[in-house]
């Protein structure tokens, strides 16, 4: 899959880019009050009724965005489907200033909207604030910590953890239960790997967290339907 993605990106430079995509690709990455200017296109969405999408959250792009049950999109979080459809699972928390998808890939190149750069985020994933997730796949229960970056086409396994400021390059893979700390050291989390009870606890904690956020963040699904 990752090979396919990269080849598509290479060939895309010679393609005629759809006009709408060039318009929508313009906004800056920085989230500010100007982020919700009319230039942003409203993407087609499927949002589960129990999901919480804050009023100030930004969902933009051309492709389909689906958000699963009990997922929380914080205010000022950005879900950008410029380059392909985005699927967000259940009990996912995307914190403020985090970017999922993204109009520009991590190498600064503008991504063209040929629709093949998909982003799947598994169940019970937490994307912490200011993290950038352009990954092809993020497995269940993973944590993308503050200011961590996941490059285009990367595949993150289940119950992985990216420590704050850690980064995974484009098309890299991380096996299940791996922790990546900032100097690029990988380490397997044996505690999670060998203890199903701990994993169950983790997912339960995530659910509790969602319940708490449900009280704190007013949801406005009508804006995106």
């Amino acid at each position: 899959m990752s090979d396919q993605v990269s080849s598509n990106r290479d060939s895309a430079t010679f393609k005629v880019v759809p006009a709408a995509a060039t318009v929508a690709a313009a906004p800056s990455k920085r989230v500010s009050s100007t982020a919700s200017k009319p230039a942003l296109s409203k993407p087609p969405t499927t949002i589960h009724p129990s999901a919480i999408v804050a009023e100030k959250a930004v969902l933009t792009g051309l492709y389909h965005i689906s958000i699963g049950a009990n997922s929380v999109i914080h205010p000022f979080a950005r879900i950008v489907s410029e380059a392909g459809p985005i699927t967000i699972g259940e009990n996912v928390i995307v914190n403020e200033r985090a970017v999922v998808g993204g109009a520009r890939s991590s190498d600064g190149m503008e991504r063209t909207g040929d629709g093949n750069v998909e982003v799947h985020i598994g169940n019970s994933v937490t994307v912490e604030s200011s993290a950038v997730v352009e990954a092809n796949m993020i497995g269940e229960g993973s944590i993308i910590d503050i200011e961590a970056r996941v490059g285009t086409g990367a595949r993150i396994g289940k119950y992985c953890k990216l420590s704050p400021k850690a980064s995974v390059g484009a098309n890299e893979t991380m096996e299940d239960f791996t922790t990546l700390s900032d100097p690029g050291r990988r380490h397997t989390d044996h505690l999670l790997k060998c203890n199903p009870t701990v994993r169950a606890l983790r997912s339960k904690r995530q659910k509790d967290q969602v319940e708490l956020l449900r009280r704190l963040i007013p949801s406005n699904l009508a804006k995106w339907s």
Partner: protein
Amino acid sequence: MALPFPYTYFACPCTETTSFSSTTDPYSTEPAGGAAEDEESTFHSQSPRANYALYPLEHLLYCEDCHQIRCPRCWVEEIMTWYCPSCLFEYANSMVKSDGNRCTRSCFNCPLCMSNLSIVGQNEETDKAQEGSHPLDKGQQATGPYFLHCPYCSWSSVEIGIQFDKGKEIYDQLQRIKNGGRVVMSQKDKEREQLKLRRQVSRGSISQFEEPETPKATEKESYPPDDRDLFANLNAFYKSQILESTGGSALGGAFGALSDYGISSPGTLSRIMSMYGSNLGPKRGKDKPAPMREAQSEMEGVRLTKDNDEEKIVESMQQMGWDATTSQEQRREHPDNMDATLVSDLRPVPTLLRTKRSKRCRTCRHILVRPEPKVASTRYKIRLLALNYIPSLRLRPLTAPAALGTGTPTSSVTASSIASSVSLDAIPPARSLSLLLTVHNPLFDPIKVTLATPSLTPPLRPNAPASRSRVTILCPQFEVGASGDVWDEALDVGAKESREKSIKDAAAALESNASGQKQAEAGKVWERGRNWTSVVLEVLPGVVNSPVPTARFAGEDANVLEIPLYVRIEYETETGPGEGASAVERAAGGIKERKEQRELEYWCVLGVGRIAQTA
């Protein structure tokens, strides 16, 4: 030089005791001898030695007794308290001496990433799950086996097979558990074991030398002993050797009475002497004891390398890959981890203790800095910063004094300085540059300042006289007003006249401003405030050629324009009855408040910027 331009460094006078001789100074262009005497009297800002003498003002202290600046070289640090930065527990000095400089309670750092480990009870959360309580309910008691967990890299002590029964005193518990969960024998058990083994050996008498080949099949032998065990064994072995050899010599000799004096006894000394040279010590003939033998087995403290040890390590490294091996930093973190090749050999690192230190003047032993001994407090009882005693010097380029005379003096000056954007990273060479030097007085007495500088700065490169910059201080002598409450001046009637004068000055400045630009005049202060005065410096930067890569001293700072500046301050201050008076005077009594003339002189270095290099 780390500070951004322009900067000011102060030279501690303690460097004057070691003079800068022209022979050691690679930047000296003067021929040896001749003008050397004259050269020595000024400060070489480019000398390699100057780096060790110059400090930013914030780093310096001031000794009130010697009336002198004090730098890290001329103060002594004394440790007041030891404490753990993690749990803030205060350790007594004796505890540090006996137990080492690490926290002996429950504070540990992650062996992988060095962040603090948290103690997690394994059954805490399972209880919660069973009860199905509300997520916001807290306060459940953690039970069951505990382990250490790193919140950053998710390392846990479960990985190395270590769990704890109690959630407290983890250090003691960890001492007793080896990696993999093996429980270590306590010291008493170990000694008993040793004694037993030794008895067996002595019963087998001659078999002592075959010991390594026939290891005893005790449960201890199944694991290689760690460094601590080995050291204990070695220690015990040599003690027994000393006892045996001295005891043996005492049997027939005249030194019987000294036998139990051990290694330091004269008998032992003479024996050692006779061992190394037959004609050195007193001849003792037949009762020469058998020389001490070396340790030969693990029981005696020798670690024997087995043939397949290294192969095993290589094999496991091949299997587990790069990420399973330890980095040098990880190994360096704690003596226990020094031999750890694999991550699974690492042990949690007890947190290093920190200290609170007081600082004393080396010359007069007076305390310069004394923090409050309480660990949680960050305040100081005594803190004599040079900042509060030494006038601070600030430098900035002066090019467009357009906004002068409007508003308060300070604000207008800063505004103009921002407006004037001379790039200090590329000063045009050989073009006159005006700089504004502002002297702030922190003292409560008005001071007389005298500035001096060599007319030519030291050359930036050896044998490059063109790189010397010409510096002129337009007003080398001036006064700076006293510091104090801002409102003192307004309320003080005596100051009224000076205030009126300053208003007149401001008006004059306005006039001159209207007629054109304010001109810097020789012998006149540029601007004056309540406790500050600024004067103009004119600099003609030298010409610096782009560096030759092979040049010996052409480092990255080879084009930095630095001006050595000599500052001399005179002021009159009121001294209290005790302060400043000699012991004799104090004993004589009757000394009350009196005026005292004080002076202070030191070298500074003003870092202006980098001179643009010409090809």
